[in-house]
């Protein structure tokens, strides 16, 4: 078990005008699963590849288990990585795929056999060791990729969007398996994803990234309950947080709120109330079973306001519904800097 620390890490591609990562620091505690989440192009994969040693670090320092690894080859960093496309060796059997890294390190044959068998049982792959990757389903391939990472017993696992090639149902199932596996092995992990739901469910520590910089670090609940910026407020949570000018909902805006402030209310915090201050002209009602998502307009606003309510609440397009929001459901942001106020 070991921690990973990044200090003022920069990445500038030669020929690029702006740095991909202008300078970023992050501490990952031993045994923790840290999820980097952000939109595509935010630098999260680049960051992961720098930790893996697949991209050069332009400036700053990366340390794994207290050891500076900037100038070490990927093989010497004691990490293993699960790739988005799994990167299984197509001409090798499942067994050889998992054993390859161990063979390269000169491990004795019976030890290799023991470790691979153990991992195969853990992942439910014991009947498939003699097969080639092309004879496996997407989910099985994904598990072989996991197995290849596990058998090495490395200091850290790196996951680069490992679930994005699976269908929705399998993704949820595999997500749980990864969480379970990581909790059992307690191996420090960095997990990159663009899927905020995946990020919320997996993370011990959630790192929201935007344009090469960290917007917020915290536990998933902290990030959800107190988003540090407009970006985080819009990115984490589904459907996204409603962001309204104080003039649209004067009674909800604190007296101290500056003119350029924005009020954020999560759709889940919109509570139907006959005397509520928010009056929505309902346009569309999406019935999801347990809940319904109501899209409506506030007078004078261009974009929809979204409310998520229990499906028992009667709602029909064309009606006007009134909502209130409890005090702790109202977030206040500075519209100019994008930062949270208060």
């Amino acid at each position, binding site marked *: 078990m070991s921690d990973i620390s990044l200090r003022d890490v920069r990445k500038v591609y030669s020929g690029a005008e702006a740095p991909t990562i202008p300078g970023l620091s992050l501490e990952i505690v031993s045994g923790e699963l840290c999820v980097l989440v952000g939109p595509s192009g935010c630098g999260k994969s680049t960051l992961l590849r720098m930790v*893996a*040693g*697949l991209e050069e670090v332009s400036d700053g320092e990366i340390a794994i288990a207290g050891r500076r690894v900037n100038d070490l*080859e*990927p*093989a010497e960093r004691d*990490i*293993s*990585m699960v*790739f*988005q*496309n799994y*990167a299984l*060796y*197509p*001409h090798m059997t499942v067994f050889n795929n998992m054993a*390859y*890294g161990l063979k*390269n*390190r000169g491990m004795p044959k019976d030890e290799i056999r023991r470790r691979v068998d153990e991992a195969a049982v853990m992942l439910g792959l014991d009947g498939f060791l003699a097969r*080639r990757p*092309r004879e496996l389903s997407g989910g099985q391939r994904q598990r072989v990729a996991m197995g*290849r990472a596990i058998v*090495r017993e490395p200091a850290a696992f790196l996951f680069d969007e490992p679930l994005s090639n699976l269908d929705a149902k399998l993704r949820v199932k595999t997500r749980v398996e990864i969480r379970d596996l990581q909790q059992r092995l307690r191996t420090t992990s960095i997990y990159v994803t663009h899927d905020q739901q995946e990020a919320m469910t997996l993370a011990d520590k959630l790192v929201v990234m935007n344009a090469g910089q960290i917007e917020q670090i915290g536990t998933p609940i902290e990030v959800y309950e107190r988003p540090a910026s407009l970006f985080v407020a819009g990115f984490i949570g589904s459907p996204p947080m409603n962001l309204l000018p104080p003039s649209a909902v004067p009674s909800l805006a604190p007296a101290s709120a500056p003119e350029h402030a924005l009020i954020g209310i999560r759709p889940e915090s919109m509570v139907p109330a006959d005397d509520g201050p928010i009056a929505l002209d309902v346009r569309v009602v999406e019935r999801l079973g347990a809940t319904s998502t109501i899209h409506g307009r506030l007078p004078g606003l261009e974009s929809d306001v979204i409310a998520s309510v229990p499906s028992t609440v009667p709602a029909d397009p064309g009606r006007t519904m009134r909502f209130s929001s409890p005090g702790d459901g109202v977030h206040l942001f500075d519209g100019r800097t994008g930062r949270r106020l208060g």
Partner: protein
Amino acid sequence: MRTKKVTFRHRWLPYALVAPQIVITLVFFIWPASQALYQSVLRQDAFGLRTEFVGLANFARLFADPLYLESFFTTVWFSALVAGSSMLVALVLAVMADRVIRQATTYRTLLIWPYAVAPAIAGVLWWFLFNPTIGILAYALEALGYDWNHYQDGTDAMTMIVIAAAWRQVAYNFLFFLAGLQAIPKSLTEAAAIDGAGPVKRFVTIQLPLLSPTVFFLIVVNVVYAFFETFGIVHATTAGGPGNDTVILVYKVWRDAFEGLNLGSSAAQSVILMAIVIALTAIQFRYIERRVEY
């Protein structure tokens, strides 16, 4: 599912469009090939006054002829050397070009140029370079203490035509190897790097096995090339000499017909060559159909 049929309004248009190709095939392939088949069972005197049907006697005589068998082995040896050396050099170049990022297209373009040179020209070029009297390479070899003379030494002559033939083919092989290497996902080599394999090990255990379909395809193409397209090189440089040391099969076909005036035997040799090329092509097609092997 039924495929949609495209109908031309002009009935003659499709025929007119394929006609040139058919005419060319008929005139330059079907006709000569059928002539060769026909001639291979005939015997004609040197003046063309008398022709008689001899059945398979021409073939029987060929297989009993030590000169023909010698030429056969010369050809096998020659094509093995051409295919082997040109593929090896091309693979090394492709691996290096695969790593280059800047100016990659320039390198690629320059490396492809030799393929545009006609075989006879390539032969003459190397003949000049290796000429014992005026050739710069022969001069350089002499400085190194080697007395190069492809007029007298059979090995020298063979080396020269192998180099001339392989040089052109390197460009072709290079293109296929480079495309093959670039088709291997980068994440595979990255995964191997994390798995502790150095550059050489990555090449041998990951890239080379994944290139094997390309390797097989190129072996067939290069052998066909060495068997059939190298006439110009031999004719322009060694003319089969010294002695019979560089008489490859295609060259012997030509020489027996136009210098030896033994049309029957020459035609029989053509038929054998035709059988070889058909066999090679069949192997290649069968393999390509099952290409996605690994």
